[in-house]
Every structure is written in C-alpha cells, then in structure tokens.
C-alpha cells in the first residue's frame, strides 16, 4: 500500500540541527551527519593492572578470557521470526526533526553520534579488568627440632 494512502505523508524525516559542538570523539567513535544503513560497532578491551612494566611483562591475549568469545544472548521465538508477533505502522506528520544546539563533551570507544536515519545498529562492548601481581612466596614449613 502507498505511504500517502495510509496517511503517512512524510515517509522519511530529515533532521535539522542548528549547531553541534563536540570536544572529543576518541577511540573509534563515529560522528555522522546523514543517513546510514547498517552499523556494527565492536569494542574489546583488557584493562590490565600490573606490578611490572608492560614492556617487560609480556602480552595478554583476548583468547584467554571467555567473555570475549561468549555468544550474544539470542531471542528464540519462531513466531517472532516469521513476523507473527508485532505489526508496526509508523506515520510522520512532520517532515523534520528539529534540534537547536547539541553540546557533547566526549564520545568514547565504538560509540556513535548520528544525525540522520539509521536502519540497523548493533554495538557490542566487552571489557575485562584483570590484575597481574606475583603471588606472595609461601612461608617455609615449621620444622620441629
């Protein structure tokens, strides 16, 4: 059915922004003005606290920790997959989304700032915080004379 026939006069809305001020967009942050189809943002981080210097203490590996390869939780619902659960109908009565001024201090790792339309966005962040300190030496056994 045609969008106009359903009462949806503006099938695509446009974002109007007066001004944007971003101080920092670091570590794979995305700032986009315009439309986007699909986003897949991933972040893997090992926050490591060590006694020794990183240059001498060797590497750490993501593969050693299950949190980095654990599967995403899945929705198992055959009805939902066949489209029998929800029927969504949207209609826009205004062709624009208006925002006066956006002030952002920081956008961090794998984050997304988007002024425009998107279709699918999936972002996944996995952070493991570990410490590597040598174990204290065991005390010598008590020997009775």
């Amino acid at each position, binding site marked *: 059915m045609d969008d106009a026939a359903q009462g949806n006069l503006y099938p*695509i*809305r446009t*974002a109007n*922004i007066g001004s944007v001020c971003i101080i920092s967009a670091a570590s794979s*942050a995305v700032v986009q003005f315009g*439309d986007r189809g699909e986003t897949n*943002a*991933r*972040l893997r*981080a090992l926050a490591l606290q060590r006694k020794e210097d990183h240059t001498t203490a060797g590497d750490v590996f993501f593969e050693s*920790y299950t*949190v980095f390869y*654990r599967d*995403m939780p899945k929705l198992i619902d055959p009805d939902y997959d066949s489209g*029998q*659960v*929800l*029927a*969504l*109908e*949207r*209609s*826009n*009565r*205004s062709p624009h*989304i*208006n*925002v*006066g*001024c*956006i*002030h*952002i*201090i*920081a*956008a*961090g*790792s*794998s*984050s*997304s*700032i*988007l*002024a*425009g*339309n*998107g*279709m*699918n*966005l*999936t*972002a*996944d*962040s*996995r*952070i*493991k*915080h*570990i*410490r590597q300190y040598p174990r204290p030496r065991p005390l010598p056994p008590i020997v009775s004379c």
Partner: protein
Amino acid sequence: MVYFKVVNHVLSVGHIEILGVSSASMLQIGDTDNVSLYSMFDTPPESVIVGPMAPFPQPGSASEMTGESLVETEVGDTTFEEING
C-alpha cells in the same frame, strides 16, 4: 498479534547537552528500525566498593555554586575531616 501504530507529530528540541557517550552506546537524531546494544564488563570483586564512600573535598568554587543542594560548607568539611582522622 500486536498491532502497534505510531504517529509522529512535530518534534522540536531546543538544546541537548551531554557529558559523555560511553563505549558501544549511541546518540541519534533521526529514525531507526533496530537497535541492539550489548555491554559485558568483568572486574575483580574487590574493585566494587561495598560500604560508605569517602567523600571528595569541596571543589574550589563551591561557595559560589547555585542550585547544588549537597554543597554545604559545614556538613562537607566535617565529614571529610572525620574520615581523614
């Protein structure tokens, strides 16, 4: 079967102020179909402090602040001194 009908009328926002958009999160001005945001964080148990928090000292311009209900010179100073002995 759920029939979900959304009518978007005029959307106008004056000002957006954001301190931080953190890891794998999003800010969008516009329409979207699907959004999935996952976050897994693993930290040693002793990193999570359970118990009373030691308060920070007063910021330098605390006396000039307006609308900050917790900035009271007497209360803040007393607590800070107690914690530090």
